[in-house]
C-alpha cells in the first residue's frame, strides 16, 4: 500500500496545481481563455473601433498610434491595418489611415453589439456594473449579426445601454453622429429618478420601517435594476403605494410586507432599495 504521508503530499501538490489552473479569473485557464479570445478577429475589430473613435479629427490615424493603443508590436499593427484596407474598411492616406464608409458602418455594428451586450448583462445577469464593459468587450467579437439582432429582439429593441449611451439600430441609426459621443464612463441609472433621489437625501427606506408601521413608496433607488427592479414594480412597489411591515421572520431577515393586499417577503437588501415617506397614518388594514 502507498505510504499515506507520501500520498497526502502528492495530493496536496496536485490539488494546489489544479486550483492554480481553475481558479476563477486569475487562474491559468482563465488567463489562457482571455488570451485566446483576443483572436485575430478581435484584434482587427479593436483596430476598427480605435479608428472610428479617433477619426473625428481631420487627421488620419498613424500606424504608431494604433500599435500604442492596442499594445501590440508595429508589424502586427501594420498587418491588421492592411487587412482592413483589403476588406475595404479603411484606406491609407497622408501617412496614416482613414475609415471608409463601409468601415464606419462596420464599426457602428460593433458599437451596437457592445452596448446591447452591456444592456443584456445589466438586465438579465447578476454581474456587477464594473464587469459589464469587460465582458462585453470580449463577447462583442463572438456574435454574428443575426445573433445580435436576435439579442436586440429579445431585449425589446432597447435604445440605450445601462450607461445611458445610445445603441445604434440594425440600420445604423443613431440620434447624433457616433464620433460626437463620449466613451462610456460611469453608471448613470435611471437618470431622472436618480436626480430626485439625491434631492430628497438622506431618504428613509423600507428597511427603516418598524414592524407594524406603514409607509408610502416615493421611489426605487438606482441600485435596484434589471430583473430585481422589474419584479418589485410588478409586485406593485411604485411611487405612492402604501406598504406596511407585517412580520419579521424567525431569523429576523426577511420581513413580510403587505403590498397591495399580498403578503410579500423582502430581504433587507431589497427593502433598502425602496425609499419611503414614513406615513403618519397608523398601520391600516390593507386587505
Amino acid at each position, binding site marked *: 500500500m502507498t505510504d499515506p504521508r507520501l500520498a497526502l503530499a502528492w495530493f496536496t501538490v496536485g490539488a494546489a496545481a489544479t486550483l492554480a489552473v481553475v481558479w476563477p479569473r486569475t487562474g491559468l485557464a482563465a488567463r489562457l481563455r482571455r488570451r485566446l479570445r483576443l483572436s485575430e478577429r478581435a484584434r482587427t475589430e479593436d483596430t476598427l473601433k480605435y479608428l472610428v473613435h479617433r477619426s473625428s479629427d481631420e487627421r488620419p490615424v498613424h500606424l504608431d498610434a494604433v500599435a500604442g493603443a492596442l499594445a501590440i508590436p508595429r508589424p502586427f499593427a501594420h498587418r491588421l491595418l492592411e487587412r482592413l484596407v483589403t476588406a475595404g474598411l479603411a484606406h491609407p492616406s497622408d501617412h496614416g489611415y482613414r475609415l471608409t464608409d463601409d468601415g464606419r458602418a462596420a464599426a457602428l455594428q460593433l458599437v451596437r453589439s457592445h452596448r446591447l451586450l452591456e444592456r443584456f448583462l445589466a438586465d438579465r445577469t447578476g454581474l456587477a456594473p464594473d464587469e459589464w464593459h469587460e465582458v462585453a468587450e470580449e463577447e462583442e467579437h463572438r456574435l454574428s449579426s443575426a445573433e445580435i439582432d436576435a439579442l436586440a429582439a429579445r431585449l425589446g429593441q432597447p435604445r440605450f445601454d445601462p450607461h445611458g449611451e445610445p445603441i445604434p439600430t440594425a440600420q445604423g441609426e443613431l440620434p447624433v453622429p457616433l464620433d460626437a459621443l463620449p466613451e462610456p464612463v460611469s453608471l448613470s441609472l435611471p437618470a431622472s*429618478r436618480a436626480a430626485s433621489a439625491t434631492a430628497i437625501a438622506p431618504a428613509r427606506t423600507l428597511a427603516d420601517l418598524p414592524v407594524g408601521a406603514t409607509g408610502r413608496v416615493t421611489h426605487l433607488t438606482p441600485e435596484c435594476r434589471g430583473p430585481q427592479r422589474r419584479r418589485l414594480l410588478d409586485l406593485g412597489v411604485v411611487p405612492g403605494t402604501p406598504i406596511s411591515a407585517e412580520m419579521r421572520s424567525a431569523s429576523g431577515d426577511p420581513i413580510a410586507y403587505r403590498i397591495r393586499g399580498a403578503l410579500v417577503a423582502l430581504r433587507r437588501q431589497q427593502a433598502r432599495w425602496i425609499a419611503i415617506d414614513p406615513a403618519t397614518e397608523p398601520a391600516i388594514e390593507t386587505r
Partner: protein
Amino acid sequence: MATTTMRTRLPRQDESLVQLGVRSGGFDHLIALAGNPNVGKSTVFNALTGLRQHTGNWPGKTVTRAEGRFNVGATRYRLIDLPGTYSLQAASTDEEVARDSLLFGAPDVTVLVLDATRLERNLNLTLQVLEITPHVVICLNLMDEARRLGVAVDPEKLAAELGVPVVPASARRGEGIDALRQAVHEVATGVIAPAPTRVRNFAPEVEKLIAEVEGAVRAAMPERPNSRWVALRLLNADERVEQTMPPAVLQAASAVRWRLPADFHDRIAEGLYAAAAMIAARAQKTGLAKVGFDFDRTLDRWLTSPLTGFPLMVAMLGVVFWLTIAGANVPSAMLADLLIDQGHPWLQGLAASVGLPLWISGILLDGIYLATAWVVSVMLPPMAIFFPLFTLLEDFGYLPRVAFNLDGLFRRVGAHGKQALTMCMGFGCNAAGVVATRVIDSPRERLIAIITNNFSLCNGRWPTQILMASLFIGVLAPPALAGLVSAGAVVGVTLLGILIMFGTSWVLTRTMLRGEATSFSLELPPYRPPRLLQTLYTSLIDRTLIVLWRAIVFAAPAGAVIWVIGNVGWGGESTAAHLVRAFDPLGVLIGLNGVILLAYLVAIPANEIIIPTVLMLTALTTGGPEAGAGAGVLFELDAGAIGTMLRANGWTTLTGLSLMLFSLLHNPCSTTIYTIWQETRSAKWTAVATLLPVVLGFVTCFVVAQVWRIAT
C-alpha cells in the same frame, strides 16, 4: 364599439396557424389560461377540463405547459395553461412564455384568473393583457376566501370597469365553472364582443410621446381605429405590430423611441397600478366583518416568531420524517417478501417448467426482475408516505413560512430560502427534490438548489448508512450504547451533508454561478384548508409514481448488466471479478475497495441496490459459502451474517466509515441525473451536478483514509 374591438385583433394570425397545422387537432377554439402565481389557476384548469394537475400553494407551479380540452354544446375547446406571472414585461422566462403565447399564439379567448382578495395586484396583469387582446374573460376566483377575509367584489361593477365579462368563482368548490365555460363560449362565438378598458393616464412625458406616435399612425392610416394602442406597441418595439406598419410610421416611432425616458418601464408600471387602484376601489368593498377571528395572523405569529418558529418547524418536519421511516418498515418488508422471497423463486420455477434457457431466465429474472423488485420494495413505501405528507403541508401554506424563516440562513450562501424545502424533498428522493426546485423562480438560486440537492441523503441511501453504522461504528461503543452511537453516526453524516450543501452553495455563487441573474421574491399565501383526497391522488401520481417509474426504467437494464458481468467473462473469471481487481488499488487508496467502486458504477440507477450488489460481488469474487442464489444474483442477509462476510473479506472500520462518506458524496443516481437534464436542459449543469459530488467524495474519502492510516 363591438366591431371596433373586433378589428383591434392583429391581422390574421389564425390563418397562418391553420396553415401550420396547429389547429388541425380536432377543436374549434383555442383558449389560453393566464393569471398571477398562486391564484388557483391550476385549480380552475382542472375544474374546466376535469384533468388532474398538481396545484400547490406556490407561485410558479406551472412550468411545463399543461393542455386540456372541454366542450360547450358541440363546440370543442382546447385549453392551454400559461405560466403564472405577475406581468408581461418579459423579464423572466415564464413571463416571456406567457407574453409570446398571448401575442403570437393568438388564442381565441384568454381566460384571466384573478384573486378576489388581491384585486389591485391582479389588475396590473389584467390591464397588460387587455392591452394585447380584447377577447378576455375574467374568472374572479377565490370568492369564498374573499368573503372569509371581509372583502366583497362586485363582479358586475368590475365587468363594467374592465369592459370584459367577469365570472365570480370558487374553483376549489367547483362554483362558477359552468358560468365560466358559458362566458368563454359566448366570447369565442362572438355573442359577446368585449370592449376592454385601456389605461390612458400614464405620466405626462410618456403620454406626450404616445401622442406623437399616435399622430403619425393616424396620419398614415386614418382608417385604423386603435391608433393609441398601436402607438404604445410601437414604443415597445413590438415586432408583430411593426410588420403591419408603413415605413413612415416606423420612422416616426423610431425617432420618438430615442426620447423614451430611461425609466419608461417604471412609468408604465406606475400608470398601470394607478389605474388598477382606481378600478379596484370602485369594484370592491373592504373592511367588512370578517368571518371568525383572524386565523392567518394568529397562526403566522406562532409559526414565524423567533421563539416558537424554529421549534415548531423542527417538530413538524420531525413528525413527517418519523412517520415516513416508521411507517415504511412494515409495507417495505411485505413487498420484499412478496416480490423477492416468494415472487422470484416462483418465477424461476415457472421459467424452468417452460424450459427457458438458463441465460434468458438469468437476465430476465435474476437480473432485470430482481433489481426492479428491489427498487420497488425499498423505494415505494417511504415515498408513498413522505410525498403526500409533504404535499399536505404545501397545500396548507406552511412550507412558504419555512422558506421565510430559513431564508436568513440560505441568503448568506447566496441561495434562496425555498431551497430549504427542495432540500427536505431531497431527503425523500433527490429526483423529486430537483423537480421541486421549480418553485424557485430566480435562475441562479434554482441552479444552486439543483446542483446541491444530491447532498440531501435520500431515502435510498438510508439502508446503507444504517447498516454500515451498526456494523462498523456502533460496535466500537459498549453494547448498551451501540444503538445510540450508530444512530448518532447516521445523523452525523446527514448533518455533514447539509453542511456541505451550504458550503457548496457558497462556493458556487462566488465562482461558476456569479453571472447568473438573481431576483428574490417570496410570497406568503394565505393558509388554505388542504384537500385530503386530492392531495393524496396528485402526490401519488405526480411525484411518487413518476419518480418510481423513472427509477424502474433505469433499474431494469442495470439489473441485466449486473447479471451479465457476473456471468460472462474470460480466462475462467467473470467480467465482474476482472473489474473488481482493476478497481481495487484505487478503492483501497481512498479507504474503500474494488467491490464498492464497481457496485457504485453498475448500481448507478438506484442507491437502493448498492448493498445487494456489494454482497453479490463479494460472494462472486471470493466464492464464499454465502454465494447464495448464484452468480449475478442480488441477495440480502441479516446484519450479523453481512458483518461476518464483509470482515472476512478485509473490511475494517475505515471501510465502513468511508462507505458512509462515499454514499453521501457520490454522483446522483441516473434517475436524478436524467431529471436534472430534463429540468435544466443544459449539458453543462447536468455534468456539474453529476461530477461535483463524486469529486468531493473521492477527495474526502482519500483524505480521511490517509489521516486514519497515519493516526492508527
